[in-house]
């Protein structure tokens, strides 16, 4: 299926292209926009970006594989990034990771059995003074304990579950 960007996002792309002297420079922001809409960077997204910016698809693919924030396969509605670098590790990140693997029933890069969460390991997220921390979607959750993280996840799971049900109902 061919990927197309929503009309209002196309307007953003037009504005983006005025910011740089080359079209190629819009590659990273455009991929972010596409990922926000599609949930991941599918081969169709790569084709679309390559056409939109007049770049070889191989070049776009090279960019996608270089950066960790582009999902190269579909992910769950919520992505949980556990910071595993030194400052967080010294304050219990490993326990958080172990707990999440157990709760979700999957390892890093896997998706929870209920399909609501994808678990990822992150390198330093610049929140060392509030360690340990995880990033869930756009939000930082800092100074965590296993219990505090569980409460946050329960809350997100309830909201995501309700949203999925209501959209199914409509469909």
């Amino acid at each position, binding site marked *: 299926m061919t990927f197309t960007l929503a009309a209002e996002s196309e307007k953003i792309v037009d504005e983006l292209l005025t910011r740089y002297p080359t079209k190629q*420079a819009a590659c990273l922001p455009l991929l972010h926009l596409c990922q926000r809409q599609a949930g991941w960077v599918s081969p169709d997204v790569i084709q679309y970006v390559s056409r939109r910016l007049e770049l070889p698809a191989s*070049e776009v693919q090279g960019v996608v594989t*270089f950066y960790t924030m582009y999902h190269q396969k579909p992910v769950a509605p919520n992505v949980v990034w556990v910071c595993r670098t030194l400052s967080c590790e010294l304050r219990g990140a490993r*326990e958080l990771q*172990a*707990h999440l693997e157990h709760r979700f029933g999957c390892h890093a890069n896997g998706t929870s059995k209920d399909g609501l969460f994808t678990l990822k390991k992150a390198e*330093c997220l610049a929140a060392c*003074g*509030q360690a340990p921390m995880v990033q869930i979607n*756009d939000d930082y959750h800092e100074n965590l304990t296993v219990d505090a993280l569980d409460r946050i996840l329960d809350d997100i799971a309830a909201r995501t579950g309700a949203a999925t049900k209501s959209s199914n109902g409509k469909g």
Partner: protein
Amino acid sequence: MIELPCVLTNRYRVPQSWSLRNIESLGAYEQAKRAYTQLEPAAITAEVKEANIRGRGGAGFPAGMKWGFLAKAELAPYLVVNADEGEPGTFKDRTIMERDPHRLVEGCLIAMRAVGAHVCYIYVRCELVTSIRRLEAAIEEARERGYIGKRPFGTEHAAEVYVHMGAGAYVCGEETALLNSLEGKRGEPRLKPPFPAVKGAFGAPTIVNNVETVASVPDILRMGGKAWSEQSRLPRDGGTRLYGVSGHVKKPGIFEGPVGLTLREIIYEIGGGMLHPDRPLKAVIPGGSSTPVLRPGDLVHAPEASHPLHAWHGKSHIDVPIGVDTMRALGTMLGTCCAIVIDSSTSMVDVACNLMKFYSHESCGQCTPCREGSGWLHDVLKNLQAGRGRPEDADLLVEIANNMMGNTICAFADGTAMPMLGLVQKFRNEFVEAGKRGVGTHTLGATARALMTRTTTGGAP
């Protein structure tokens, strides 16, 4: 308790300090207005030179001098702000972008006027969602007021500021990798020369500065370069700066202080002391993970009066004021000035393994010594950790690290090898013992393993 200055951070405590109406009475954009309507570009650069501000991104290069290197070319120069904060242990720039984004935007405007740039890109790592939102809102507010645009403050010097989102790659904090990433390419560092000041973004001369460096410029103009510089406790390294402390301390966080505080002050006074009173300080990584580790028990040996550290002869390494030059003289680096504190319960093999995992994951892969070397270091350390190592692995780590140093396009390999060498040199015994004993040094993993055992035998979650 030390009295801490409040210059760069003077608006942090204002409620909703990111909104212009809340900080206007506190002088926001007054210096940018002065820079555009009253000052000549050369006069701005002269103040920044006199301020002795050393780049806040890690390398500590004098910022005023960097501005002076900008090549005269047909293409208009660019200003690029490096907000790809990702050095493990470093979390200072984020506080500026989240709590006082207008100070950074004002700094950008002044720097653009000084170097003759009309476009500025702030390259922010995409994980910092709040920083990006607040910066974009701040830019919009400044545009509405007529501070940014075709005629800022009614003058002819057009100035545009854009936020450019990264996509998750530590190496993009290296300035030439950042420029490639800005151009929409893979973030692989470029060969230097040409340096960015000659040929940078889109082939034009480019100044790349760290967030904190640029955000300090409004205060340098307000106070005057000399007065700003004299806030420091050290010569040729001026001003106040952001310090960070994380790891095993009671009160981790970011605070502002004069250049030249000591690690002892940072850990025991500002950081509130060690997290567990019964676990004394074992080691401290002074300024982000690429800076070699220091031990509190090591004493400065500088009997000759000509030695740069002579004033601290016989004192502990953590009693030396931390500055770009003093840390270099100690065989480490100031880096980003964000310390990671490690207590006596921690295995340095675990610390090394955690850091080398980071570097092997983040190496861009262009240069063989770095791509392979960082992976080998991690493999050797994993073996040591898992009880499959040998005592001579300590020498192997040194050999691999030495083969990485200076053999690559950018400083990433050096930034990997230096902390590795420092760890083996200062804690050699732990690496040899791990090799001899095999299993048994997993202090970081012990609690996690206990938890795993408990939960796997304990039935459903």
